[in-house]
């Protein structure tokens, strides 16, 4: 199972990468893309949109289902990955390099509430029964 240790995670299967400039980059995990299957469409938040923690802000749609993506922490959307509109399959190819959007956090300490790689791995084991 592929869970990079330098990232943070959410229960709803987003990964969060704290950048050096204080912003965060967000995507969906390898596990999430595996459950969804082949991606066919991605809808991303508008730049400048203010997001609350756990707010639905993006949609990833596969041949099987459409799933909401939630803001892992509160903040302002500052960028959306322009490649995904024409090549949503990049999420299947490498979920951790195919980022969805970037946030400027309202509160950097909110990152502390997110799951570590070890916590996320435990969560997946529990989901497996």
């Amino acid at each position, binding site marked *: 199972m592929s869970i990079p240790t330098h990232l943070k995670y959410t229960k709803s299967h987003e990964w969060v990468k704290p950048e050096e400039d204080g912003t965060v980059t967000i995507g969906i995990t390898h596990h999430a893309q595996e459950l969804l299957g082949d991606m*066919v469409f991605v809808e991303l938040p508008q730049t400048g949109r203010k997001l609350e923690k756990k707010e639905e802000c993006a949609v990833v749609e596969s041949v099987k289902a459409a799933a909401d993506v939630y803001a892992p922490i509160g903040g302002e959307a500052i960028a959306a990955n322009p490649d995904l509109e024409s090549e949503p399959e990049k999420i299947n190819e490498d979920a951790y390099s195919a980022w969805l959007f970037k946030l400027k956090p309202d509160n950097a300490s909110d990152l502390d509430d997110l799951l570590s790689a070890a916590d996320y791995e435990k969560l997946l084991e529990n989901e497996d029964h």
Partner: protein
Amino acid sequence: MLIFEHSRPGRRNHSQSPATSAVADKIPQNLLRKTQPLLPEVSEMDTVRHYTRLSQMNFSIDTEFYPLGSCTMKYNPRACNSLAMLPQYLARHPLAPEDTGQGYLACMYDLQEILKDVTGMAGVSLTPMAGAQGELIGVMMIRAYHESRGDKSRTEIIVPDAAHGTNPATAVMCGFKVVEIATDKEGNVDMAALKAAVGPKTAGLMLTNPSTLGVFEKNVSEMSRIVHQAGGLLYYDGANLNAVLGKVKPGDMGFDVIHINLHKTFSTPHGGGGPGSAPVGVAERLLPFMPVPIVGHEDGRYYWVTEKEKPQSIGRLSAHMGNAGVLLRAYIYVRLLGRDGMHRVAEFATLNANYLMTALREAGFELAYPSRRASHEFIVSLKNIKEKTGVTAMNLAKRLLDKGYHAPTTYFPTLVPECLLIEPAETESKETLDAFVVAMKEILTEIEEQPDMVKDAPHTMPLRKLDDVKAARELDLAWKPHSE
């Protein structure tokens, strides 16, 4: 092959061609088209053969077992169709005066009363024309109820994560914020999550019972108490009413508003995109808000109840009262069944599901909720099969087509990985169910012995395995002649 591809310049179906001598001089020049419409040029026989061939390529309840979970694809008795097609009904104008439509109005009034009786609600309006519209109207009534009391703080609707996608969509359409609550390991709503979610902002809870996981919400009375205590209302999504028809009434479970999919439970054709019909039923306190028209009855005379009698009604959904043809089919169906017959629907739907579930478990399939009794449907998960062999639920579904069965619902509910949601419905015989089990067993053996063959299914259909990813990514829905 499309009908356009049969087209040859100048070929005509003369007996059915419109007269071309008509003069259109009253139509303003700017509205007249400059080019001929793109229509196929085919003979009558080409047309008949084309559509007959298409119908033979189709899977339908009239030709194959169709265990499509949460859709209740049961057989529609021919009597419903033929009686609803009587010329007196077909020729009736929706604006005809009440006096000349007493027969039709009487049928509709009786249908309202029967649906009230079988669901335990205080009032029924027949006017919504699809499940999603019934839902929308139900939640609009919840909103109207809170607003009428000056209670403006209720901005949230609670929806379990197992719900049909239309539930959260409906809540959002009505301006509510959706609060999603989790399901526990047994397939019930997580009661701790519900308790944490309710509060002064709760406008209501939307629930499907039995749920889309194919199990009955054991704690429904307690859920009802918790939501009502917080001042919220309970919405019943009637998608799975077939499992409990006449046995358990949503009204008795504490629901304030429900919608009933006549096109599922009450045996009118569906699956082709409509027309549907989803009457809404309400408890006493929502009676003033029901959509109109409704049929009233006094002194032996039937009449339309409109905005005049119901000034707080949320209004009309169409110019007239819903899909008359579908409502008539449902009326005939409930009259053919009677109250006892409805009990048998629920009993046999449940018996068939549990028989099939047990047989498939014994055949080696893994159930999503092995400790639970099925309602009218149940879930098989191919998660472990996929891990071992790479064969997915979709592969198995396609292979079933080769064996002459319409595939069950795949990948819904999304909570269960690699799932098949199987609903046999009450109209199938033991022989059909046994034959389906044999086919499923055969596929299980095939998965072990030749998994690649299963992955490439279907093999006997007019079209082989389609590239569904390409189809979704490169939508190409409009036919154009090659010359363009």
